[in-house]
């Protein structure tokens, strides 16, 4: 029983981080329709900025976090201005390839700058975990969970409740018509990409201290982020959040009760199963024919 409870608690914490990874990507992939292969690299960059901010710059842990997020925002804006803006109107594969290229450059760049040895980020939280009956959880992870939930809430609000969010959704459904409505579509593109990137960086900055920081950390994270986004329905922030928790649950229980070798397989099997029964993800968009 305690083992099961421990698994559930782990799910909650892991799910929060997965959800965070998913929502950043859902903005760029789900809303902007850019198959963003820099997401993993941006996640890595967020973690390294956090590392630098804490160690080299000596900013406190809590000041370093917004620094990393800001770093992601800036890098995202630069990527968009330099690589995506000139290709506006090009088809999805073109931008996908450019993003693959940019991802490779960013990843090898971090390897070049920081070397392959993993870094670890010191945190102000106590090592001793919080004990709740038989189960325990570290303070750091609790903090990450709450920060992730806060960011998810913020993004949801931004997309669904603000004028900017309205303009974002309009732009990506029909950018000509959005322009006719007076939306500054160029700005919206850049802003959306930057915000999505900053969320990836936030995920990296939050998870960097939980795990360790190394140049390839983004690889699997990216793959899972794609899965989460699709599970939750493209462009659906709430869906991505829920998708993150579902994936975490599948992995956790799969590893705990079936076989740890098939841990990641559990997540992917869930995805296949979901798509067989609900081919448009858990939260489908309404569409019509004719």
């Amino acid at each position, binding site marked *: 029983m305690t083992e099961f409870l421990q698994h559930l608690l782990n799910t909650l914490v892991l799910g929060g981080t997965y959800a965070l990874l998913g929502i950043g990507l859902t903005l760029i992939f789900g809303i902007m329709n850019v198959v963003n292969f820099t997401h993993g690299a941006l996640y890595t960059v967020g973690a390294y900025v956090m590392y630098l901010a804490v160690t080299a710059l000596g900013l406190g842990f809590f000041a370093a976090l917004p620094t990393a997020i800001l770093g992601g925002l800036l890098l995202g804006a630069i990527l968009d201005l330099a690589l995506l803006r000139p290709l506006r109107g090009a088809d999805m594969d073109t931008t996908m390839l450019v993003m693959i290229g940019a991802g490779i450059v960013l990843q090898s760049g971090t390897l070049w700058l920081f*070397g392959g040895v993993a870094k670890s980020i010191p945190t102000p939280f106590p090592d001793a*975990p919080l004990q709740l009956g038989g189960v325990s959880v570290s303070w750091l992870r609790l903090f990450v969970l709450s920060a992730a939930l806060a960011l998810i809430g913020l993004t949801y609000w931004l997309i669904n409740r603000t004028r900017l969010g309205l303009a974002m959704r309009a732009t990506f459904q029909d950018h000509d018509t959005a322009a006719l409505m007076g939306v500054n579509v160029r700005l919206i593109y850049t802003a959306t990409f930057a915000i999505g990137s900053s969320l990836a960086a936030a995920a990296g900055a939050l998870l960097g201290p939980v795990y360790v920081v190394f140049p*390839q950390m983004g690889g*699997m994270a990216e793959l899972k982020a794609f899965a989460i986004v699709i599970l939750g329905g493209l462009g659906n922030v709430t869906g991505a959040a829920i998708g993150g928790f579902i994936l975490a649950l599948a992995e956790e229980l799969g590893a705990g009760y079936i076989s*740890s070798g098939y841990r990641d397989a559990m997540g992917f099997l869930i995805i296949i199963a979901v798509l067989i029964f609900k081919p448009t993800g858990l939260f489908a968009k309404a569409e019509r024919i004719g």
Partner: protein
Amino acid sequence: YAQAIRIGVNEPLTGPFAASGTYVVNGARIAADEINAKGGVLGKKLELVVEDNKSNPTEAAAVAEKLITSDKTPVLMGAWGSSLTLAVMPKLADYETPMLVETSSSGKITTSGNPYVFRISPPSALEAEAFAPMVEKLGLKKVDFLAINNDWGRGAAADFGKMLKGKGVTVGLVETMDQGAQDMSAQLSKLKGSDADTLLITAAVDQLTLLFKQMAALGLKKRIITTGGSQNPDQIIAQAGTAAEGTMHLTTFLPWYPEKTPNPAATAYFIAEWKKRGFEFAGVTESFRGYDGIRTIAAAIEKGGGTDAASIRKGFWSVDLTGLNGPVRFAKAGPAGSESGQSKPDVYLVKIDGGKVVVPEL
């Protein structure tokens, strides 16, 4: 000097194993420089031709091809991971070129009948054998395993399991984790619930750090012993902090106590040189393999008396050298007629105690 002797170095410099591969190459450079400063081998300088195998077996094979055919290196060192080494091996046979294997631990490397392979790292069976005498002293009763899901982890779990069963120790859970996995809470939660007294872990240093942190967070308190010899305790202490306290590690090198190593002078020289070049101390537990590897190759060239592949291969069989972790002498391994060479290094058990690496009294 007439012409330099070229040694092909086939290591992962990018991709997941980039850090380790780079350490090994740095160690190799120290050895080459040292040998050249002393006048080289057979009157010729050594020249390392370093190529990146991108942590990818196909690339590792391609790199071997390039080194042998296009750079004309008569001998290779590499290729860090077992799958990388295994991918290179058919090329060795094709071109009849010997290779010194410095890190890989898969048993297959020396048992598959490739007579061009000479290994100085211990396969996990050897390591288990070295650990056997300590089992009773530590009082192990029931042991769980947590291993990285690759040749190294699987091999270690299998070989240690066999050895322990032979000593009457119960083997409990055998859990695995993916190479790139970062969150092992699920496996650890399961292991926490088991009644084993000891957990044997096989994983690279980064994952060990994560594991120790996550164990602390879950309140998992058991005797921890890691295997494999490239755990790099200093990095663990630096990164996992108090979470690593009390853990034990099987290593093949004792850089903290140069005087206790088989060749104190060489160890001291190597460590000094390493520091002089501005590398992180933590890297020495990996890089010494590169250092020993090149010294072994130099010895083989010396003994073989020629700079062609065949002489060097012959030379390997008569190498007798005291490496940083024990004698390097190749014994025959694998099917008769096409045996590979396997050397048997020392294995030590160290413990992290008060933020320091100590050799526990057993």
